[in-house]
């Protein structure tokens, strides 16, 4: 699918994340991270950490407040826990991404869907395992970005995960303003519509534009 997208510049990483699996890489200042929802309707749970101080990390609450709006799209600044802009969303063919609903976990699944779902694979399992590669652990896992996940919040506060609107091949691009570490969990959830109840692979590309 990524073959259809033009990449003018040097490709640093081009990788298909299998369904339900984690992935991570550093994105350097000025480089672009492109994430492609290859099959459509696939939530891609994502966290960022500042490479020069991994304690400074993505903050969902600060990102939303900074833009005074509840959803992520072109123009969104990805803001750190200390109020620094980490990346900017520069392109988005889907137009609707979430950062209010956080990631699924075995524990929260029991509360949402019943105790019988406890032993199903979950995003926070992916995040913790991937984080340990960098000396990080569970306490470094915070509420995250959910690319291609559709979570409307209405004026009464009703909060619902509904069917995604992303089509196969939809993509989002983010340009790093500082060096960052990116962690992704290609969401394995099968109990709500965030993955169309059927998790699928996605493509990630990191590239440097021609200067």
């Amino acid at each position: 699918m990524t073959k259809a997208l033009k990449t003018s510049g040097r490709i640093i990483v081009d990788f298909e994340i299998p369904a339900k699996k984690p992935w991570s890489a550093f994105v350097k200042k000025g480089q672009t991270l492109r994430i492609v929802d290859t099959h459509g309707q696939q939530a891609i749970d994502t966290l960022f950490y500042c490479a020069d101080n991994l304690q400074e990390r993505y903050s969902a609450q600060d990102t939303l407040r900074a833009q005074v709006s509840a959803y992520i799209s072109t123009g969104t600044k990805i803001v750190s826990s200390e109020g620094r802009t980490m990346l900017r969303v520069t392109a988005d063919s889907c137009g609707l991404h979430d950062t209010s609903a956080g990631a699924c976990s075995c524990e929260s699944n029991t509360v949402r869907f019943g105790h019988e779902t406890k032993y199903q694979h979950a995003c926070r399992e992916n995040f913790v395992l991937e984080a340990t590669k960098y000396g990080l652990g569970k306490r470094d896992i915070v509420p995250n970005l959910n690319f291609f996940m559709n979570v409307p919040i209405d004026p009464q506060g009703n909060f619902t995960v509904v069917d995604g609107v992303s089509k196969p091949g939809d993509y989002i691009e983010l340009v790093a303003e500082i060096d960052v570490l990116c962690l992704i969990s290609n969401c394995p959830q099968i109990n709500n519509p965030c993955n169309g109840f059927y998790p699928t692979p996605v493509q990630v590309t990191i590239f440097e534009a021609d200067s």
Partner: protein
Amino acid sequence: MILTEAEKVEITAHRKRYEELKTVGQGEAPRALPPATSRDDAPIVENAIVHREIVPAGWYWTMKLDRGETLRLLNQSGKSCGALTAWNRADPSERLNHADTVKVQWAAALRKGRVILSDMGRVVFSITEDTSGAHDAITGVSNARTVLDRYGEGFRNTRDNLALAAGKIGLDRADIASVVNFFAPVSVSEDGTFRWDENKRSAGDFVDLRAELDLWVAISNCPHPMDPAKIYAPGDLVAIRYRSKPPMADDLCRTASAEAKRAFENNALYLEGTAQ
């Protein structure tokens, strides 16, 4: 993508179950929640009070709160915002999680009868009384940058306050994840933008948070970053720690929804020592 017949059957079954959970979670459960507490109601018996703290404008406080005790936050001036986070004292890697709180209850609006969850599928607080229902679990707190941009030099901010609060119990910035802002009337408009409704908070508003685990709690009393007031003057925030009555079988927060019941089942397993 070609699905097998078995996969299609499974997808259909999962979707059906999700729709059933949603119908109850957004229908019967919130309709059964009581109205807001009256500001004259729910007095605290004097001999139940363990401690009363007045947190001045711009300051913070760290407190121990045992399971079964309640923290009352009182917005004495009507201009305070109580930014709060909490950790499980036995294992601070378990902490308040705003995303799980709103997602699991199908509701971004916190009010009497709702619960606040940890990242481990357990209840941290029950909201047992609440006069305003005007709280914010989504838009976070002030930091050095937002306060400098807004008010200039010389004002304290919540992010640094919470780092100090955490530092005094052996924790640090990495331990601060989600924050809930009490007395912060933020809602989401139809077009997705946030709005602030100042008329939804008043002097004398209070909220009661009953601890459901043994906790460390940190609160900060700085202006909410969306507070439109032009001057930095949040007023005193009063925090009262008191011993509350043990919950009965029909306790509102424990029975308000199927999700809350399951979260309390997780608390019970944990407290019995049969699960971690």
